[in-house]
């Protein structure tokens, strides 16, 4: 079949940030296939220079409002690494909790408000208010609960306030922990309903084998905040070697940087984590995974949405046991941090470099700072999950388009949009907008 297709999705919607899909098929031959990022660059790494390391998490959380907690946590981790501070067990638990809340929030947002309209054949959740009112209410209720839990723990979800170098400025009281536990347990029925909802959805069948990258560990915990960097192709490196994993490189025919590891591209995110650490999922989550037909190594990128649901269950259950742990341990309020104490030089500052690697909802997020002996940032580098996925998305599109050439333009467009959305790309936070290609230059 030879036909011309010209798809230009100007302003891809229901993703965080601005991206355009450009596909050009001439006489059945794929000429152009790319995802342009048109988000206005914000130069965060540039403007971090000269700022105190104690402001870094506050500033970098503003890279992205959707995964602000993950950015804060990656930033804090990098800063603590540079300052050689080891967080307490309590702090680690609370941070894990915060990340769980955000992952839940972000995944649920994606499943319900961003991905499900495609699967239900509407443009957005707005028409669903009439047709699927209970579903929309459930989605908003779940989201609100995640948000409220973040508020208790970190002041708010968007740009958390309490999480800081050394720990938390405000530790949850006994009543707060009870309230969180209550909310978590209260989410269970809605999550069950979500599982039911998702299992009625049919994800497009499309497969492309690729390399998956995520944090990995040797212990029994599903690694989200700690661990080494690992891949399904058998790579394993310490987090300080993150540059060897991300391998930002220049493509000869384009001025843009791509990332790759063992092959032409790699993917991060829920599916990657699941493919690498499936066994460490909470049993409940594993059950859901097998019910959804998800098992490693799953190479259908559309299934990322299902993987998010599985992780949601994991996060919920793990959060519940973490809160129970914290309640049993009892919170040590002496650990409360007075922020700004650096103004009084209470945390010893030294020159150094530190890396933070955190599993953000969308994949591995790296922050890396170099500071001088006054704690002033000299260099900063942040590598965002979406940046790492862009290359892989384009490769997927290249394989997908020829397979669906028999479909109408509208359908092709939808398939492509859905593909991009399945990665839940967070373009707004792409500090390195390295993926713009200028094919027709």
């Amino acid at each position, binding site marked *: 079949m030879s036909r011309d297709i010209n798809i230009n999705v100007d302003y891809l*919607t229901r993703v965080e940030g601005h991206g355009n899909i450009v596909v050009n098929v001439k006489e059945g031959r794929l000429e152009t296939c790319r995802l342009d990022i048109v988000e206005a660059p914000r130069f965060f790494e540039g403007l971090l220079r000269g700022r105190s390391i104690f402001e870094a998490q506050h500033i970098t959380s503003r890279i992205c409002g959707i995964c602000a907690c993950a950015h804060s946590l990656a930033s804090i981790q990098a800063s603590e690494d540079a300052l050689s501070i080891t967080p307490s067990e309590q702090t680690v638990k609370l941070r894990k909790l915060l990340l769980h809340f955000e992952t839940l929030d972000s995944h649920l947002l994606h499943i319900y408000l961003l991905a499900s309209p495609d699967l239900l054949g509407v*443009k957005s959740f707005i028409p669903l208010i009439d047709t699927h009112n209970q579903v929309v209410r459930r989605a908003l209720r779940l989201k609100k609960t995640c948000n409220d839990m973040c508020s208790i723990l970190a002041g708010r979800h968007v740009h958390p306030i309490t999480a800081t170098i050394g720990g938390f400025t405000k530790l949850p009281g006994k009543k707060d922990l009870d309230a969180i536990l209550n909310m978590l347990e209260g989410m269970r029925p809605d999550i069950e309903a979500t599982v039911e909802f998702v299992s009625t959805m049919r994800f497009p069948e499309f497969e492309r084998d690729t390399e998956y990258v995520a944090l990995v560990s040797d212990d029994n915990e599903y690694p989200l905040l700690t661990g080494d960097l690992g891949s399904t192709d058998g790579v394993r490196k310490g987090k300080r070697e993150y540059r060897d994993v991300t391998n930002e490189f220049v493509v000869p025919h384009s001025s843009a940087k791509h990332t790759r590891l063992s092959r032409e591209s790699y993917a991060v995110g829920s599916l990657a984590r699941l493919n690498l650490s499936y066994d460490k999922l909470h049993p409940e989550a594993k059950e859901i995974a097998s019910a959804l037909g998800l098992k490693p190594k799953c190479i259908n990128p559309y299934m990322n949405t299902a993987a998010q649901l599985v992780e949601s269950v994991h996060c919920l259950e793990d959060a519940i046991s973490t809160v129970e742990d914290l309640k049993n341990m009892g919170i040590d309020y002496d650990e409360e941090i007075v922020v700004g104490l650096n103004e009084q030089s209470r945390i010893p500052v030294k020159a150094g470099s530190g890396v933070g690697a955190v599993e953000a909802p969308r994949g591995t997020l790296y922050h890396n700072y170099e500071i001088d002996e006054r704690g002033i940032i000299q260099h900063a580098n942040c590598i965002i999950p979406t940046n790492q996925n862009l290359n892989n998305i384009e490769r997927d599109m290249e394989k997908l388009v020829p397979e669906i050439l028999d479909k109408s333009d509208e359908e092709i467009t939808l398939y492509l949009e859905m593909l991009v959305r399945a990665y839940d790309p967070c373009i707004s936070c792409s500090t390195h907008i390295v993926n713009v290609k200028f094919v027709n230059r």
Partner: protein
Amino acid sequence: MKRPKPKVAFFDFASCEGCQLQVANTGETLLDVLDVIDVVEFREIMSEKWDRELDIAIIEGSITDHHAEERLKQIRERSRILIAFGSCAAIGGVNGMKNNFDPDEIGKYVYGSDYHFFPTEKTRAVHQVVKVDYSVTGCPVYIPEFVEVLKAVLQGIPYYVPDYAVCVECKLNENVCMYEKRVGCLGPVTRAGCNSWCINNRNMCYGCRGIVSNPNEKGAKDVLSRYNIPLDLVLKKIDMYNKCREIKNE
């Protein structure tokens, strides 16, 4: 009393989109809001698009390049009411920190020799480019304030961002003052309206809501020296959100 629902669209410029997310985070209250307005475009969560006249345009983000300026002006032209939404839009916000650097230099730092593909200009707040009818400041926006502004818009009455210090709300909330902890807090010079969000969480105020109209700058400096807080540290902190203050409106 049923009146036609105003057509509302959200637009984002240079920002983290967290303020839009704040709206989605309101839970079922969102449905109450959607009951009184007709959201016709909201790219973050909707595919619908709208290129006709608008009753209310809600602008998130700062203006950092020529394209953005043009796009914003077009939106202004077809919108009856324009709301600057969030600190990036209302006062320039964190993007203003870029103005500490030469645009070419910072471009080179981040993108290397390809920096010219990403032309950038001095960051400006929305009101520094077009007329703004309402401002919801804050990083992120404080949803109760947003709802208040929205109601003011629907009623056709003005909303004034409070012109007094965050300290007022901080005291109403009976927080221990950061100065008691010998920490420099920007509350005394920052506009209230956030219900002293950060200090309620035992952090300091970072000044994200903009500076009051008549700050006592000399007095504030004296206070810092009273508490032995390095002045440059705090001045820098003011820049974190308020750098665009330096740009004079044409």
